């Protein structure tokens, strides 16, 4: 299987041979940053197009077909429309915070995006605390939403931001508990190691019942974290116009939109890395020739395939279920998901201690 560390080491050695060490490090930082932002935007474009087509399929429509073949250029047309929109300055609002808020949201999701293991050795941030860092980085995106709602000088934005805050803080708990369940199973928090272990069988298979329960909790809570239906209370169109980003136009709105889609990609990416094996190919003990054949498929294909499968699941949920009320959302989290998650953590610990895992 292709190990990307050979490529990155070669680039590193080349840069160190042509310039002094500090300059080489800074150049590497710049290259990595440009690649990460480019990948971030490419995936956002792919996902916005996918959302339109999947939504259309669920509603028995065709979706965009006019701009380019099969509507492929639709997203570029949308971005162009957004760029030529007027940026509206809101009266009696805090302009600094108003302009800062979208960047906080994007920063949070971009840092989390950098932790995803795309292939063997193809990962920007790989700390020994891995998954804990992902939770830390995704926890401050909510600040951007709160500031956006507050600085817009609009009561609907304010209500949307408060709802979003309550919802995201609550569901972070369930996400954390289900991730913790997998940390108990793997015995490490470093993402590259977690994926490495799964080359001997994916965790959703090895952890059997507790892992499947954790996966379901994670999918529900992840859907709520990204503020998408059936949990799209913060921007419930019929009640709050567009929630916290009502007053944003042009690219301010565009950044929130991209961040929302990329948060979904990140949720799906973490799900595929922790539960479905990340870049690890399908492994069935006893079938050596089959396993060798699977290893010929590159890791990045495995990772993206699993990630887009989970994204498709999330979109299926999005376009199937009706919106919940805010009290139902909070009751679901605090009275059902958190107790089940805690119990599940206990079951997983017992399974690991007794050696009942596969």
């Amino acid at each position: 299987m292709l190990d990307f560390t050979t490529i990155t080491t070669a680039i590193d050695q080349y840069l160190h041979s042509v310039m002094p060490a500090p300059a080489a490090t800074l150049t590497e930082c710049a290259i990595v940053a440009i690649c990460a932002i480019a990948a971030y935007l490419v995936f956002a474009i792919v996902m916005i197009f996918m959302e339109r087509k999947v939504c259309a399929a669920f509603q028995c429509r065709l979706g965009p077909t006019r701009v380019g073949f099969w509507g492929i250029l639709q997203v570029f047309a949308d971005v162009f429309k957004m760029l030529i929109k007027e940026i509206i300055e809101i009266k009696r609002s805090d302009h600094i915070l108003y302009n800062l808020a979208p960047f906080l949201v994007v920063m949070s999701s971009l840092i989390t995006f950098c932790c995803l293991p795309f292939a063997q050795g193809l990962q920007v941030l790989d700390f020994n605390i891995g998954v804990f860092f992902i939770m830390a980085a995704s926890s401050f995106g909510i600040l951007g939403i709160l500031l956006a709602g507050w600085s817009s000088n609009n009561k609907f934005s304010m209500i949307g931001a408060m709802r979003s805050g309550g919802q995201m803080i609550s569901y972070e708990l369930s996400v954390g508990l289900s991730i913790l369940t997998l940390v108990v199973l793997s015995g490490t928090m470093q993402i590259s190691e977690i994926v490495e272990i799964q080359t001997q069988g994916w965790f959703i298979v090895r952890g059997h019942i507790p892992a499947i329960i954790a996966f379901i909790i994670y999918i529900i809570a992840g859907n709520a974290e990204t503020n998408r239906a059936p949990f799209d209370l913060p921007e419930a169109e019929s009640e709050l116009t567009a929630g916290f980003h009502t007053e944003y136009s042009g690219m301010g709105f565009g950044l929130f939109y991209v961040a929302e889609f990329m948060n979904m990609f990140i949720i799906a990416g973490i799900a595929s890395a922790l539960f479905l094996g990340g870049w690890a190919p399908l492994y069935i003990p006893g079938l050596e020739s089959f396993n060798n054949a699977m290893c010929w498929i590159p890791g990045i294909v495995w990772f993206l395939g699993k990630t887009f499968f989970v994204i498709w699941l999330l979109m299926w949920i999005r376009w199937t279920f009706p919106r919940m009320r805010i009290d139902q959302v909070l009751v679901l989290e605090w009275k059902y998901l958190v107790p089940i998650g805690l119990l599940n953590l206990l079951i997983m610990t017992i399974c690991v201690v007794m050696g009942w895992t596969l």
Partner: protein
Amino acid sequence: MDINMIIFGGLAIVMIVSALFAVTSSKIMRATTLLLFVLFGTAGLYFMLHYTFLGAVQITVYAGGIVVMFIFAILLIGKGSMDITQTSIRRYLAGMATALTGMALAIYLIMNTDFHSDKFTADGVDMKLLGNALMGTEKFNYILPFEAMSVLLLACTVGAIMIARKK
């Protein structure tokens, strides 16, 4: 110049400038946001020292917890009612005296502390070591404070529910 010095300089400038503006800003929301950048800078310093656990804790607890709580409190109290409109000279003097005393104390402590820089390892602290120290029952382990903290948090939750519940 060493790369670490450049990063340290950048972080230090961000932290000092944000801290100064946080203190001098008259708008409470801007002050909170600038405080957030100071906390990010501190987390950056921990990451620079390869102490990633403390850095992530700094971001989770302060940026994701305390600052969110501050903002919630400000939003619930009411818009703009906490903005500073005028400050008396006595307040200035008291604030300055406190700041100077704090700074003197900090400088004295930095000058007179042995930082054990020879024990610094570049590959960070192993998570297993930290986990065992937090949950261990041996000498110099922290199981008792850890459990006391969870009882305290439980008491806070019960108290919050009692206050929030209307008869």
